[in-house]
């Protein structure tokens, strides 16, 4: 992050976007008010839903000079419901289908690019299940950057018999459209350090631009300030890496 960084004044609000197949879905939009030209970030929420903590992350990007939008991936199953009820309804319905996720992220990207002051550059970032979905979006859509925060099952297949349809994405590595930043905890088991190593090997073999960082003393969800998994050292360094990465790829 540049030393001249200053906090931006922002506007944050709930809005509606067109997602997969033109469906109207709710989204949370935060944008800087005093940055003439800015890049955009789609924030992909974790499995517990479109919640207060994820909206706080979305505002943080705006404070740092990026427009940011978080689509409610559970909107269809539970329009207007509280995030935890909506997440339960989505889980009971089998989770968010990959194809629908890509369509919803595409809609969110279009909304960002249409904002006054957009420089046209866009990225995704996702946490937990959203980490896998950020990777999926980056392999399915034209992006300028993508961040995967401890997404499980990018590499590796979940045990049989789950109610949710979640499969590995290794077959898509060759389609990755942008530089990738991956942030992981060495004490996490999904993804495990071995799976992170396998992802690095696959990205290297495919000739992709990437940097993967694994933090000591951190497990899954180390960014989550409202959970006991929060690890301050990993989170602080992770945020520094994210803004350095976005500064390089979303600037201009």
């Amino acid at each position, binding site marked *: 992050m540049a030393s001249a960084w200053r906090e931006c004044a922002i506007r944050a609000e709930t809005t509606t976007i067109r997602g997969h197949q033109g469906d109207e879905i709710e989204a949370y939009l935060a944008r800087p008010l005093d940055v003439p030209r800015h890049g955009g970030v789609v924030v992909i929420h974790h499995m517990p839903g479109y*919640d207060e903590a994820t909206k706080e992350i979305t505002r943080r990007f705006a404070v740092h000079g990026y427009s940011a939008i978080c689509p409610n991936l559970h909107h269809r199953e539970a329009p207007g419901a509280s995030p935890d009820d909506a997440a339960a309804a989505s889980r009971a319905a089998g989770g968010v289908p990959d194809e629908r996720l890509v369509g919803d992220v595409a809609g969110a990207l279009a909304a960002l690019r249409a904002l006054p002051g957009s420089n046209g550059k866009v990225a995704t970032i996702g946490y937990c299940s959203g980490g896998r979905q950020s990777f999926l979006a980056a392999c399915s859509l034209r992006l300028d950057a993508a961040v995967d925060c401890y997404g499980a099952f990018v590499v590796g297949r979940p045990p049989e018999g789950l109610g*949710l349809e*979640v499969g590995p994405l290794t077959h898509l590595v060759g389609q990755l459209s942008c530089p990738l930043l991956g942030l992981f905890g060495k004490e996490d088991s999904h993804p495990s350090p071995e799976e992170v190593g396998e992802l690095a090997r696959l990205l290297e073999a495919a000739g992709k631009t990437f940097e993967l960082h694994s933090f000591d003393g951190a497990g899954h969800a180390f960014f989550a300030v409202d959970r006991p998994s929060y690890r301050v050292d990993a989170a602080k360094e992770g945020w520094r890496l994210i803004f350095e990465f976005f500064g390089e790829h979303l600037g201009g």
Partner: protein
Amino acid sequence: MCTYQTELLEVSGSGKGAGGWFPLERAMVYFDHPVHAAAEHSLNVDFLSPTRGPAARLAVELDPVAARELARTILAVLDRVEAPAGAGHAPVQ
């Protein structure tokens, strides 16, 4: 980790949620991140009535040890009340 471990089953009975009592249609049991419990993972049970909408939900997030103890206790109580006549406790009327 996101475990994604989820099981669904049909149930009958009643539950009391934020909007009062409602008939139960379905239970969802999963081991994953809690919303409120101070743990990285918990054994979660949602009692649901999908026909009444997503807010018709009675949710618990249990420590795994507590969840096992609860399951054992439920089975023990049912075993007692459902035991054949003369084999122990009489069924509760």
